[in-house]
């Protein structure tokens, strides 16, 4: 939790919020209630939110305003939830998507 900016020169001090626990990929983390999932994970030093479906390259926060979908995770079983926009609640279970078994692209060489 040490990476969190408590007292920002411009934005001022963080007002005290309830500390709650949540799970990300079967590990317990703690974060403030109602802050975005991406921020809570970043404060815990977790930057990789998912891996690319095709090549498995690690992906994380990119636009952080909800239109690039790079931060999509599965929250309580629901897929395609944007971590950067979803407020954190107590006991949330978050899983990150990984590489998919079959590739999309291997057909290209045949019908070139």
């Amino acid at each position: 939790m040490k990476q969190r900016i408590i007292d920002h020169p411009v934005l001022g001090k963080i007002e005290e919020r309830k500390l709650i626990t949540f799970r990300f990929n079967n590990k317990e983390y703690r974060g403030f209630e109602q802050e975005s999932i991406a921020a809570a994970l970043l404060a815990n030093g977790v930057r990789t939110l998912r891996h690319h479906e095709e090549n498995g390259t690690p992906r994380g926060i990119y636009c952080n305003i909800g239109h690039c979908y790079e931060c999509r995770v599965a929250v309580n079983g629901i897929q395609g939830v944007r971590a950067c926009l979803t407020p954190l609640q107590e006991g949330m279970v978050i899983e990150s998507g990984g590489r998919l078994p079959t590739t999309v692209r291997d057909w290209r060489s045949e019908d070139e």
Partner: protein
Amino acid sequence: MQNEKMIVCRCEEVTYKELMETKKTYNCSARELKLRTRAGMGYCGGRTCRGMIDKIAMFQDSPKNNKEVSLKYQPPIRPVSFTDLGGVKQ
């Protein structure tokens, strides 16, 4: 040119080199470029790379596609899962 490996389409990981080569070998329009390389078909709906693909398609424009049609905005504007559309909830 060092930005060969530069990723143009982040969702589908299509590099600048791949797009330029496809453009040179097939001299294709923006739509054909998208169909051949999947650039612009990603989860974000082409938000990031649509403009760049259009530009690459119009690069050294040949008479064949000078009445260039740029890439369309495909609905839905946000990804919708089949479960939401009417799937059976477990």
